[in-house]
Each structure stands twice: as structure tokens, then as C-alpha cells.
């Protein structure tokens, strides 16, 4: 089972190597956003701390989301092309092809986040996280990556064409903007403020912010982990059901 997932992961890597623009985008866009928000808008926002320190955790989440569009598209084109029929009549673990997509997505996320944090440090980002906090951050990011990847795989499977699959993932990319990623939720207008406060990405971002600031709030961490676990289970169950139906 694990071995087949690894074979499929290798296949995903080869696809990426043949068509690197998607990963290039996934890595580059968050960095561009970082420049944009820190240099262009940063002075206009009053968040109580250095803006780069405020924005980097939010952009980490944005980096995870940004990579998802291409995951939905590539899962869907796998289903609509004949190669999946070959996999289905072979004596291989059925979910391996999906697991391959999920792992590739998480690794792309980690790469994008490494680039983002690297550039943020050059721009004066000054985290006060301990080694343990960094490990915690890595854990949350990986959990979030796995959860959103399974959810996106399900979106990709449910869509009829690769194009609609790409569109289905757009809300995931937009959602971070309506959270505390860029500006604190309290500064937003009524309605939007409540939405931003209670949507799943806000506690996740606050957890990342807490970890990077060296003082994570326990309540945020628990809510964040619960959301991630919930999304992961939902995505996995939905993806498995859709995969079986299409198979």
C-alpha cells in the first residue's frame, strides 16, 4: 500500500518536473504577496506590531491554499483520462493514486512556505519562536496541508472537467482574505467581522501567529487542530466515496 503510494508520488513529481509552472506559481505567488502587502500596504495597516511579523503567519496559510488549484485540476484530469482505468484493473491499492496527489501537494506547500519564510526573514521578519514552537508550526502546517489536500482532491473528483475543478478550488484561495491573515478581524465591518472571526482559517492563523511569536494560546491551538482534523476527515471520506463512484 505504502509502496504504491510512493510510486504514484514519483509519478506526480515527474508531472511537476514536465510542467513546473504550477509549482513555480505556488512558490512565487506567496512571495509576491509578501512584497505587496509589506511594502505597498503595510504602512497603511495599523496592527500594533511590525507588519511583516503580523502578515507572515497569514501568508503561510495563503501559501498552503495557493497550491491547491493545480491539485484539483490534476486529480480531475487523472480521472477524465484513460490512465485511471488502467490503474483500476490492476492489482494495486485503490487509493494510491489519490495519496500520491496529497503527498505531492503537502511537499509543494512546505517548499512554498520555506521560500516565504526565507524571504520574510530578509525583509526583517523577527519571530521569537523556540525550536519547539517551530516544530509545532511544522506540525500544524503539515496537518492543514493534508486536510486541505484531501478536501481539494474531493473537489477535483466531484468536478466534471479539469476547468471546473480549478474553479471549485478558487474559494479556498479567497477564504484567507476574509480571515485575520492580512488585517485583524476586529478592524473589519460588521458581518464580515463575525465571518472572519468564526471561519476555520482564523484560529489556524492565530495559532501560527502565536507559535511564531513564542506564546501560542491553548484555545486557538485546540480549535485549529479540531478544524484541521474535521476538514481532513470530511475530505478523505468525500474523496473516497466519489472515487469509488467514479470507479
Amino acid at each position: 500500500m505504502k509502496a504504491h503510494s510512493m510510486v504514484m508520488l514519483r509519478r506526480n513529481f515527474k508531472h511537476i518536473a514536465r510542467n513546473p509552472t504550477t509549482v513555480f506559481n505556488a512558490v512565487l505567488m506567496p512571495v509576491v504577496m509578501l512584497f505587496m502587502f509589506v511594502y505597498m500596504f503595510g504602512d497603511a495597516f495599523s496592527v500594533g506590531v511590525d507588519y511583516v511579523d503580523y502578515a507572515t503567519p497569514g501568508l503561510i496559510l495563503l501559501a498552503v491554499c495557493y497550491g491547491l488549484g493545480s491539485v484539483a485540476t490534476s486529480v480531475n484530469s487523472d480521472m477524465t483520462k484513460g490512465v485511471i482505468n488502467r490503474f483500476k484493473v490492476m492489482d494495486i491499492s485503490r487509493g494510491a493514486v489519490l495519496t500520491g496527489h496529497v503527498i505531492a501537494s503537502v511537499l509543494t506547500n512546505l517548499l512554498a512556505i520555506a521560500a516565504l519564510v526565507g524571504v520574510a526573514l530578509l525583509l526583517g521578519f523577527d519571530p521569537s519562536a523556540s525550536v519547539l514552537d517551530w516544530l509545532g508550526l511544522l506540525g500544524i502546517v503539515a496537518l492543514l496541508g493534508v486536510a486541505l489536500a484531501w478536501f481539494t482532491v474531493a473537489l477535483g473528483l466531484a468536478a466534471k472537467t479539469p476547468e471546473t475543478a480549478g474553479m471549485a478550488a478558487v474559494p479556498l484561495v479567497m477564504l484567507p482574505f476574509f480571515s485575520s491573515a492580512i488585517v485583524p478581524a476586529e478592524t473589519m465591518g460588521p458581518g464580515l467581522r463575525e465571518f472572519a472571526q468564526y471561519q476555520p482559517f482564523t484560529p489556524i492563523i492565530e495559532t501560527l501567529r502565536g507559535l511564531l511569536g513564542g506564546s501560542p494560546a491553548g484555545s486557538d491551538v485546540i480549535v485549529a487542530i479540531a478544524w484541521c482534523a474535521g476538514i481532513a476527515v470530511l475530505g478523505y471520506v468525500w474523496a473516497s466515496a466519489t472515487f469509488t463512484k467514479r470507479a
Partner: protein
Amino acid sequence: MVVRMTNSAITASGLRKAFGDKVVLDGIDLEVGEGSIFSLLGPNGSGKTTTVNVLSTLTKADGGTVRVAGHDVATDARAVRAAIGVTGQFAAVDELLTGRENLQLMVDLNRRIHAGDGKRIVTELLERFDLVESAGKPASTYSGGMRRKLDLAMTLVGDPRIIFLDEPTTGLDPRSRRTMWSIIRDLVAGGVTVFLTTQYLEEADQLADRVAVLDQGHLVAQGTPDELKRQIAGTHVRLRFTTAAELDAAARLFPESTRDDEALTLRVPSDGGTASLRAVLDRLDEYSLGAEEFSVHRPDLDDVFLALTGRTTEVAAK
């Protein structure tokens, strides 16, 4: 031809499948002997692909039993999958990977291949299918014929003993079609059982030990290609005349012919070779008769269908 029916590679009885209220397979019984080529012949929409999908575990039947390589497809799909290879109607290759990478992927996914043998298997298949030169290019750049060859090569990784080929030559040019035929013959020479669907009578005739004709989910005929062909008119020459008088005169010259007074045509049995054609023309010349139109007609699926069901394939497809 001796049909080796001592052991059955595939048996199906009472196979039924409907999609919604559309019945696609309505009680199919068939048996395929080990090491033989079985051809399922039928027009578009007759249920060929559904049959292959059910036999190869891709689709669940609504009723009936299927055993492939001794295993029940419903209860032991994994064991069936381990024994078969399937090449569908549309090439199931990974377009972004090269030919070699596609084959390597199959090797990596096969539980029974030892790690050390992988390279050798890939190289042998590339050579056997004449794909060495394009082995390093992505499959998306391959021609239709090359793609089919790569597809079949991928199916053969791990030496499956039973192979399903769904319309393996549809859309191929005549040369690629002949190449595919010789590959299929080689497979069977090596003891492999082949289940093949086709729209071409000629293909079934060339390859198959047994043929079954599928029409709207029913098997309307089953037998050797020769048995099947005996039920239909063989190759013949068709002559069309301008007047009934000419048709009368010509009909007297060829006593074994059949005439159609309405169309003013005469059907003269012939093997289609130059000698027999010349004999027909010489005989017409001898009596100073000239046909307005002259054509050689080979029996095809249409003729089989007309003979077996009284309908043309176009009507059957509706």
C-alpha cells in the same frame, strides 16, 4: 482449427447489465478456452465495451456469474486483476510521462516483478514494440499507432495470462493494424488467452478461434469464423447494367450468380483475385456485354448483421 477447450480461461453465464432503464447486456453466455483468441463482434452500442468492463472487474454486473482465470469477478476481483491485462478502447497511457517511464510505472506497480528484473522487462518491451527510438519522448507526442503499441506493451508488463483488447485497431491505419494483428498472434503463440472486441469481420476472421456476434445485448451467433461466414454471402463481384435485357443475358452467362431486377445488378461469386476477375470480364467481352459498374464486394460486419438479424448495423446502433 482445433479449439482447446479443455480449460476455460473465461466463462460467463446469464450476464446482465442495465444502466438506468437501458438494458445493455441481456443474458450473455460465453466460454473462452485457454490459449485461444475469442472475438466479440458487434456494431457501436451493441454492448462490447460493457462486456469487457464486466469481465475485467471494472463494472459490476446486475446478474449472472463470471469466472476469469478460475476466480469469481464479483467476490475475488483482486485475484482476477492479478491475472489479467486490459487494453481499453482509448489508450490508457500517462501523456506527461515518456514511453519508458510509462512502462517503468507498470513495473513499479506490479507486485510480482522482482526489483532487479524491471529494467530488462522495460527494455525488452520497448524493443518488441519497436518503440526504442521514441522511448525518451512524452507519450503526448506519439502517433495513434504508437500510443496503442505503448498501451499494449504496458498491459503486457508482468506477463498476464489473459488479455482483454477492446477494439485494438479502431482508428488505426492499415499498416498499424497489421502490426497489431501480428503482435496479437505472437501473444497467443506464447499461450496467452486473448478476448478481443472488434467492429471488423475481417479482423475476427484473421485472428479469432471463435467469434460471437453481439446485437443489442444478445449474442445472436457464436462459432468459428468459417461457420459464421457460411451463413453469409462470400466475396463476390457486383455488376450493374443499364437495361433489363443486358441483365438477362449476363445472368445466363453466370449460372451461379444471383440477380436483383430492381437495381439491375448481378452478384457473381468470386475470390476477388485478378485471375477470377479477368475470367468474369473475359466472359462478358466474349458476348459483347458491358456492365455500367463493376465492384468487388467483401463481406463485412454489415453483411453478417443483415444475414443474422435482418437489420443493418446502422439500424442496430439506434
